[in-house]
């Protein structure tokens, strides 16, 4: 019932999305779209609504108004097929959230086996393939607690990739990591971008956003305040973005 979007049709589109937590208006009419193969970086201060916007795409938050379409799924509707949506969307979190009681291999094979009915042997091949993609083949049988933060995050990315999503969401995936570990995770994401993966990322790494993003969405007080190609980070037009990129967010 769900057709593959035509080349012009965006993979993710938000139109006039509104969301409040209690009396606090977090998203005040947010609109943006992500085309196939595009990398979009959501930036902004803490509390600007960027993480909430990202979480709405995978319906971890229900919106109060507006329209969200993701890979043909009407995410804003109450009857959206969540399991179908989440097979199309991969999400990686700041705190990795690997399952501590399972090995890395089991973490990766769990969903393909349980959700897609992939045979165990096939799923294990898949696990090796995605781990190779993130440079962690040798950690197949390790438990998450035996890995460094950067390795855990790469394993979490591999786990997500194993579901072969059409779009990947990254929610501040390097915020818990030191610069060295951050670099190894960013390298993996860069490779994904080079392979043509459609991605939406919330990030505080301005240098990285500038290097990888096809488009920047700067959020301010629950609204899309400024948007454009990565070059807006070096030549912003609004005073808010000027101040934001000027306040030490451009990491050296």
């Amino acid at each position, binding site marked *: 019932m769900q057709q593959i979007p035509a080349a012009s049709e965006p993979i993710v589109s938000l139109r006039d999305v509104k969301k409040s937590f209690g009396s606090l208006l977090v998203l005040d009419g947010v609109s943006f779209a992500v085309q196939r193969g595009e990398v979009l970086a959501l930036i902004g201060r803490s509390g600007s609504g960027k993480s909430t916007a990202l979480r709405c795409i995978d319906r971890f938050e229900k919106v109060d108004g507006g329209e969200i379409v993701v890979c043909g799924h009407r995410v804003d509707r109450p009857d959206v097929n*969540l399991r179908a949506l989440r097979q199309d969307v991969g999400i990686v979190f700041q705190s990795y959230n690997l399952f501590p009681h399972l090995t890395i291999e089991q973490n990766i094979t*769990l969903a393909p086996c349980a959700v897609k009915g992939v045979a165990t042997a096939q799923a294990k091949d898949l696990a090796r393939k995605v781990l190779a993609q993130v440079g962690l083949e040798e950690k197949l049988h390790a438990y998450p*607690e035996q890995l460094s933060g950067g390795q855990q995050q790469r394993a979490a990315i591999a786990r997500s990739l194993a579901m072969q999503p059409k779009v990947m969401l990254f929610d501040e995936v390097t915020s818990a990591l030191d610069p060295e570990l951050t670099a190894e995770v960013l390298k993996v994401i860069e490779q994904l971008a080079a392979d043509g993966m459609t991605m939406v990322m919330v990030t505080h790494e301005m240098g990285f956003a500038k290097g990888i993003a096809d488009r920047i969405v700067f959020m301010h007080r629950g609204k899309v305040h400024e948007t454009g190609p990565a070059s807006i980070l070096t030549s912003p037009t609004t005073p808010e973005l000027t101040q934001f990129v000027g306040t030490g967010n451009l990491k050296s």
Partner: protein
Amino acid sequence: MGGHLNINHLMFLGQGALWTIGLSLVALIGGGIVGFVIALARISPLKSVRIASAVYVQLIQGTPLLVILFLGYFGLAAIGLKVSPLAAAGASLTLYVAAYLGEIWRGCIQSVPKPQWEAAEGLALSRTQRMTKVILPQAIRIATPPTVGFMVQIIKNTSLASVVGFVELMRSGQIVNNSLFEPFAIYAIIAVTYFAMCYPLSLFSQRLEQRMGRGRSNLAPA
């Protein structure tokens, strides 16, 4: 009768001890099964189920076990069900244990960090799959020490079943004492016997807790 404590008395006490173990097992298995359902009901997506199970837990936790035992024994008889002391005590203890274990286990399930649920949701696992493959295996690790600790309470609380005529360790001691009139010696034997049943479990619980404590620091994200 009178006389001295002899091997027959000890055999009788031993039989009582076996019934104590039997009743404890009935209470723990029955209460464990019902308690698991209660735990799941307490976090059900359906509000009515959550409320009903919460009311059940509050009612049981607010009633003395002794009263529940009387209600089980005389109450069932009053509505025309003739039940044996074993059945009445087993059923009452099951209801009692279920409320407490249900509440302990609910807490353990909910103490699995919320991001674990979200990660499982993000991978398109169904609610049942999230529960059985991600949450419960982690909750069981957390739940083991308090559950073993609670078992000790249950073994001791089965002594209350003596009031409905169930001849377990406590009741058998009373019976022996009625013929010997040596309360101190007999109740000392009974106390030691209860201790011998409970102490290994307490020790086991402590050891589990120590092992858990060590494991937990490893589980914290770097």
